[in-house]
């Protein structure tokens, strides 16, 4: 096929209707098409990708069954990064940009795995599906664990909220200030229900697949791997990264699911109970829980459903720990619903 003319006019078969003007992207998007596409690629790999690697590595520390000390150390390191809010905003912008454009691009193509079931084609479709799953998962993950949204009242799982716990705890119980809670609260979230654990498994696999596959295709798009051999080799590197990240996740996952609440310090126990509300199920050894709490002058208020009305605290799950008779631990122990006052 060699055309050797200077200017071939656009020919149209006689009788053929004029071809429709085809534009894939409207207005300003089409003007900067190439740059936007490359930024889309970059925004997925660098800010989001690097953060996810760091995040998974940090969480992998959950595997050390040391009362979450190593993990707590890592978390505190992250929270000590100056201008963390700035980083968070940058990350959110990157995710929003990547997801917005990604969703748009996803719907501009038309998967055809049924007709052409090649491995690469399946990967192409998976990349689009995992992108959508990852977006939903990341939002859910951050909304529940970081912003502490109780989505539809289904999952009130507090996490690293304003320092160490829910507002009011430290004023109410000065003894519980600065208790390391990152590990128990993470573990609590994962042990909360099989569904949560399953959601995390699917969500993280989607995120990690999306990232490592994106790294593979980006190398082609940017023109780094230009031969089939190079694409293959880079593919092995990407598979390696996928496996490594899944190992990190596996460590975090297993660590969280096997986290031993009973082995925590009395302060950790009290603060965990205060923070997570209805969290007594997490403790296997209820007797030990009681003695531990007693040792710091507190007791767990067990709220079996039938007694809920009598205690008058049915609608308000906190505090679930309160000082026992020992005065001085807190002045306003009776003021159950007193959060608002602080």
């Amino acid at each position: 096929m060699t055309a050797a003319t200077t200017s071939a006019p656009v020919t149209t078969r006689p009788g053929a209707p004029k071809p429709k003007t085809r534009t894939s992207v409207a207005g300003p998007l089409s003007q900067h098409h190439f740059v936007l596409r490359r930024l889309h690629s970059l925004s997925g790999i660098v800010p989001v990708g690097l953060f996810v690697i760091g995040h998974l590595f940090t969480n992998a520390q959950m595997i050390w069954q040391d009362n979450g000390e190593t993990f707590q150390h890592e978390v505190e390191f992250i929270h000590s990064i100056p201008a963390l809010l700035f980083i968070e905003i940058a990350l959110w912008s990157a995710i929003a940009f990547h997801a917005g454009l990604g969703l748009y691009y996803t719907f501009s193509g038309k998967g055809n795995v049924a007709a052409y079931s090649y491995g690469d084609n399946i990967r192409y479709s998976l990349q689009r599906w995992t992108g959508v799953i990852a977006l939903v998962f990341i939002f859910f993950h951050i909304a529940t664990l970081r912003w502490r949204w109780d989505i539809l009242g289904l999952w009130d799982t507090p996490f690293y909220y304003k320092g160490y716990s829910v507002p009011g705890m430290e004023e109410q119980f000065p003894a519980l200030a600065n208790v390391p809670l990152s590990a128990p609260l993470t573990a609590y979230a994962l042990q909360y229900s099989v569904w949560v654990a399953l959601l995390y498994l699917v969500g993280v696999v989607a995120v990690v697949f999306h990232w490592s596959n994106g790294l593979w295709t980006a190398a082609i798009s940017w023109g780094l791997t230009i031969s089939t051999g190079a694409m293959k080799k880079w593919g092995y590197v990407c598979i390696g990264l996928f496996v490594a990240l899944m190992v990190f996740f596996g460590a975090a996952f297993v660590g969280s699911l096997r986290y031993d609440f009973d082995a925590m310090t009395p302060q950790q126990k009290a603060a965990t109970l205060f923070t997570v509300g209805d969290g007594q199920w997490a403790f296997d050894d209820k007797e030990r829980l009681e003695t531990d709490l007693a040792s710091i002058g507190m007791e767990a208020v067990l709220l079996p459903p039938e007694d809920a009305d009598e205690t008058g605290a049915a609608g308000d799950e906190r505090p679930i720990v309160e000082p026992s008779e020992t005065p001085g631990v807190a002045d306003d122990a009776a003021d159950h619903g007193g959060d608002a006052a602080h």
Partner: protein
Amino acid sequence: MIAPATPKTFKVRIKRQDGRDQPAYWQEFEVERRPSQNIIAVLQQIAANPVTTAGEQVEPVVWDSGCLEEVCGSCTMVINGHVRQSCSALVPDLLEDADDNTITVEPMTKFPVVRDLFVDRQRMFDNLVKVKAWVPIDGTHDLGEGPKESPEKQQERYAISRCMTCGCCLEACPQFTLDNDFLGAQAIAQAYYFNEHETGKKLKGERLEALAGPGGVADCGNAQNCVKVCPKEIPLTEAIAKAGRQLTVHAVKKFFTGK
């Protein structure tokens, strides 16, 4: 032991359409087996006796073909769900992995149907114009000897030169649809082909601008179906990656020099 006798006939299900933008419908024909029959031969047999299995006398099926030896690309159709040239699609092979002794033949879905199995592949040729897939010599004056081409480059380019504009790569591409503006593997590969030609290089900048625009290389989703279905075994994904590299370099240069 007696092997089961091969049936003397087989069925062909054909997706038909009376004209542009008309509704499509299916018809089934029973065709006699003949030695070394290809799909074009089958269509000729049907044309000689256009009666459906329901006994209805119909218009003969319309199709496009030329070379009959898989070099012109005009006879491309979707046969048993897979895009390929009908002139090189042999009935015995097709029946071997078909259920119930039936072969299905459809027009390509990524191009407007002119009639029945005949599609309008004009978009591919328009795309070649968009990416200026030619060597800019107009023959008005003697340019002297052309620049030397290295054998390695010749080899690389030869592979891409075999493209017959058949459309298989576009039919199988999830990013190429009937109504979007993606150039597709064929035009991208040809743009790269002429960028690498010593004289064709003169238009490299313009070609890259076309490849950077809407529907350009960046729209490729790396599904890599194109390279698997290309009957000419053109290393399309490599060509796409190389065009991507040229674009990266071009964009960086443009960023720093403003040109």
